[in-house]
């Protein structure tokens, strides 16, 4: 992939993507699986946001994802606009074993649709499906990897390794149908994923890549001085009127006066 990217630098499109969702749904694990295809225990918690990049090939094009993995704790919420401003894509993650996490996801979607870049592509990801898959193998996996699970930043709290794997479906609190219906209604891409097994992870990013208005970004890149991401988004902001990122713009304006 790296070779392809360097071979067609002009074709490489930079896409800013932000991950949002309630604490402990597995945002960081999703990114880690996508970026380095691993499931790493004991990752430090995300303070503010972590920043990673990964390239993704789509037909003859290469997308360079700039991924902002945000902190999930509620009190970091007021910092989130700093990270989702100018983002062209967002993955909103919830935990299929935790009903409240879908509610939080909905509220993120609402916020993105009103506050973020108007052309933003949003994907909804129901993570941790490995915990609810009925096949006995997945049950065994969870048990054997319980160490990882407990150490993993995103382990469901209170869940003991010995929890009833005999009836994994009972862990599920959000049905696929319910979430899918919501995603359709709100115009989101929808996936059920498992960062642990890797299920559905790459699909999220390729589907997003297909949906991103690449021509639009490229067009603005040519216009701007090689600043694809921010340039494109900024144009978007300019065209869409003052409603977007008002709060980001205001202090900037004042800065200008101060110095």
């Amino acid at each position, binding site marked *: 992939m790296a070779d392809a990217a360097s071979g067609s630098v002009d074709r490489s499109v930079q896409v800013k993507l932000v991950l949002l969702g309630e604490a402990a749904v597995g945002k960081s694990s999703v990114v880690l699986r996508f970026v380095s295809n691993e499931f790493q225990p004991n990752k430090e918690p995300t303070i503010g946001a972590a*920043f990673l990049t990964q390239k993704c090939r789509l037909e003859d094009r290469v997308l360079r994802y*700039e991924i902002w993995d945000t902190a999930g704790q509620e*009190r970091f919420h007021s910092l989130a606009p700093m990270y989702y401003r100018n983002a062209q894509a967002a993955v909103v993650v919830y935990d299929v074993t935790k009903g409240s996490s879908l509610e939080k996801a909905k509220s993120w979607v609402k916020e993105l649709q009103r506050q973020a870049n108007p052309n933003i592509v949003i994907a909804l990801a129901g993570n941790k499906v490995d915990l609810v898959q009925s096949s006995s193998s997945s049950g065994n996996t969870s048990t054997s990897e319980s160490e990882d699970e407990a*150490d993993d930043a995103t382990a469901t709290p209170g869940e003991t390794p010995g929890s009833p794997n005999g009836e994994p479906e009972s862990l599920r*609190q959000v049905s696929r149908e319910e979430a899918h219906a919501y995603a359709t209604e709100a115009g989101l891409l929808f996936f059920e994923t498992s960062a642990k097994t890797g299920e559905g992870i790459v699909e999220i990013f390729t589907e997003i890549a297909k949906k991103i208005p690449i021509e639009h970004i490229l067009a603005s890149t040519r216009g701007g001085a090689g600043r694809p991401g921010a340039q494109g988004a900024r144009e978007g902001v300019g065209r869409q009127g003052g409603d977007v990122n008002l709060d980001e713009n205001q202090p900037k304006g004042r800065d200008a006066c101060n110095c």
Partner: protein
Amino acid sequence: MSVISTQIRNFKEPTREQLNYVFFSMPPPPPPKLGEEELEKMEINAVLSLGVAEGNAEDAYAGKLHLLPPYLAFTSLDRKSVRFTLPLSTIRRVERLNARAGVYALSLATWHGMKIIVQLTSLRPTADLFCSLLRNALKDQLQRGQMKNVKGFVKTCYSELLIASTSSSPENEREDGSLLDDKDGVPSEVAYHGGLGLRFKFPGDPRKLREASKIKLWTTYLRNHGRNLTLLRYPQCTRLVQVGLPNRLRGEMWETLSGSMYLRYANPGMYENLLEEIKGKTSQSFEDIEKDLHRSLPEYAGYQAEEGISALRRVLQAYSLKNPDVGYCQAMNILAAAILIFMSEEQAFWLLEVLCDRLLPGYYSPTMHGTLLDQRVFESVVAKTLPILHDHFMSVDVQLSVASLPWFLSLYINSMPMVFAFRIVDCFFCMGPKVLFQVGLAILKINGEKLLQIQDDGGFLNLMRDYFTTLGDSAHPNSTDPRAKAITNFQELLLVAFREFALITDETILAERRRFRNEIVNSLESFAKRSAVRNLHTMGRFTKNQSGLIYDALYKAICEAPPPPELATVAPPPTLLTTTDAPLDRMETRVGMRTFQVFLSEVATWARDEKIVLNGFQQRIDREIPEHELIHRLFFFWDTSCSGSLTLQDIVSGLDGVMFNDLMENIEWYFNLHDKNKDGYLTRDEVLTLSESFLFIFRHEVGDAYLGAVSRFMTNAFEYGDALLPQEENPETGEMQPKQLESNQPYLNLATFRMVVLADEILESFFEADLSGSFRLEPVPDLELPTTSGNFLGDLWQNIATADNKRIFHKFSDELGKTIGKHQIAYRPAIGRYKSLEEPKARESLLSPSQMHPQRMESPAQSVGDSAASASSVGNTSTSTLVGSSAPSQATGGSSSLTVDASAAGHAGDGSPTSAALSSAASALPAPHERAVNAARTLLERTPFAIDDVGDDDESDLDLLHGEDDDQVMDEVDAFLEENDQGLTDADKELAKDLIHAEPVK
């Protein structure tokens, strides 16, 4: 679904005394206990000298000695070279020195025999006073038995061990700081507090860190200059800190330098008690803590073992239990994990307390306002000190805080390799929070060239990440000078931070924080508002903007009348819960009755009493909040979850239920509001309550039209109501008659009510539009924020312009206005449909048309506030009512046409006069109703109609007309009228409009 918090608004700038406490790292003084005399505080000019130890005497420093019981503190004049904070209980002896005449010197001996000599350079009487206060404070400490605690406490300090075993100590340790001989080492180890590092080793290579020589230097310093509780901080102390604290001593020095040791000293046993309290408790914070335990410095061996994890858990839980308003915030786990390597749990607990409360105020609070504020401050100092870089960031739209926020929030611990981060933390505890800014600026400056090349946030972050991995490399790898080559990037960083950014002082940061605080508060509040509105389950028919206005009004009400704490953020009642876990974001703000009243007064014109006051100097509107059953009724009507409190959602839905109604819907709404048991019937009692609600809503209307309408309504309601009752035969007469009903039995249904209402044009028009229209969503004027300007004048103005002082000023100007005869008051009507008195008879009164308007008619002697006047007005009204009813069509003449009885007269044409109607209604009812109706009538008469305020009796009106003194007033009235001179009705309309749109004069 949202918590509305006014916490950040209530910030108060610290006083000079509080700043002193902060400067000396002392715990803030506890509030004085009742019946206990507070020990006096004092400061005095003094010269400190310390000269006994082994010939290397320190210079004498001039400065200030502060007596802040139970502490004695000193700082040199530059406030940085020399300072100490001594608990008085460590002082064993104070002697006045027999020196040369004119020199007033004290010798203070500490418990370990160190002698501190202070020469008091103030005038003799001042020095004498200081000495006597010092004596009292010391005596107090002795009586409390504090002196005895010192020895036990210092045993927990490693420094004492260092001093005691002077030369032998370093020998029983390995280079890495762990004890050489476990068997012999253990007993002595129990005595002093230490961190996980003692067991799991300290990070870094001890040889590279030159632990041994550092320990030696510190041992010497501590022996001569005091240690732990008695440390005197001379310039050498700061220098030693800047080269890095030795690992074994680090925990204790952090404690001493930050002052958290004083907290631990003053609160023995508290940590253990908290641990007891924790048992069996659960909370949202505990849950959050649990998630992060295994990812706090996971690479450190101590946190791969249960010992480290459980210590971390206990410290964080204890903190969140003691500080429920902070609870737990991610990043605190990293801090706690870091300090636990060097400290015992108890030490770490108190250090965390000092960190979150004093050193990084507001950083970890639920709004994280402190973090946001300091990011703003950092941006501002970058703009000032590195303008080119700042401009570049602006031009490529890079946000500084994407990188710098974690630096500040975790004290660089998760940005840099630990060994380097801990050295920054050393300096941070020694020199204060400005270190974070200085280091941040130095990082940017050193990387300046490369930073000018970056194009976006991602590039910025990558560059920073790369730089931090090279901190241990040589800063001048190509230099031929081996000394220069030996300088690492990290050393260079500290050098730049403390040399080139020494201009960033604590004062700079305080001033910048003052400058930006309001901006942060505003942006946080508008963010909270947007979230709250967005999270509404339904906005009904309101637009986003209108919902925002509702939020504003509610926010203002919460500021003015904060809901009781138990209501402030409670989880919704269990019946509404869909899931069992209710995390913090499910919490929501609920308001009680008091807040609701303030809120309603914002949005409903009839839920407030607005007095328009003119006193010759200013025109203003005094708003008061009336108390009425209708308001309570509405509160419970909207409280659909029956929890005795309302959420923003309840209020939005409630308003949605009334503000968009048409005639029929409004009638039904009003009916339902009064149908308490929701059975579709009003009882007789409820019909009366409903009528009272009418009267309450109409209480300030001009004219008597509404009064008549209500009285007609009551007559009709009871007439129709009775007629529709099932008939029964009277056992005595054999005639059919309505069945007698108890007053609490179903009586009037919606259809009948509707019919009665529609029979009256005035009520119909009220329900058609006025009721919905009486709810108005208007922008709430900006609330006052804590002081913006840091300068003296700004503070002064802030002191003047408090609400209390404004009230005093208003009162004063009112009094002045009264004495010069220009004080006038009028009530603003809630509906204002009838803008003038339309009765023809009224026009025939002796008054000229220009005098018809209430607020201009107010004579100086007749202010409504004057209770005597209003009482006489009531008396007058009730008597004339009696008269009026007997002679309805007769104009009572003169200004009395403006009083209630005249209004009855005015309506004589279209039916029975008011009082007649009332009495007929009363006579048709059983006794209890009669009483109720009478009560209603009294209320009706007592209602402070605008006109009541106007006319007192003919005489005073005549006085007003003819009195010489009043000419001025009339002149003014005329002048005022000329502006609106369009004949009577137009002028009146204009005026009424003016009144409705009148803004309070500021």
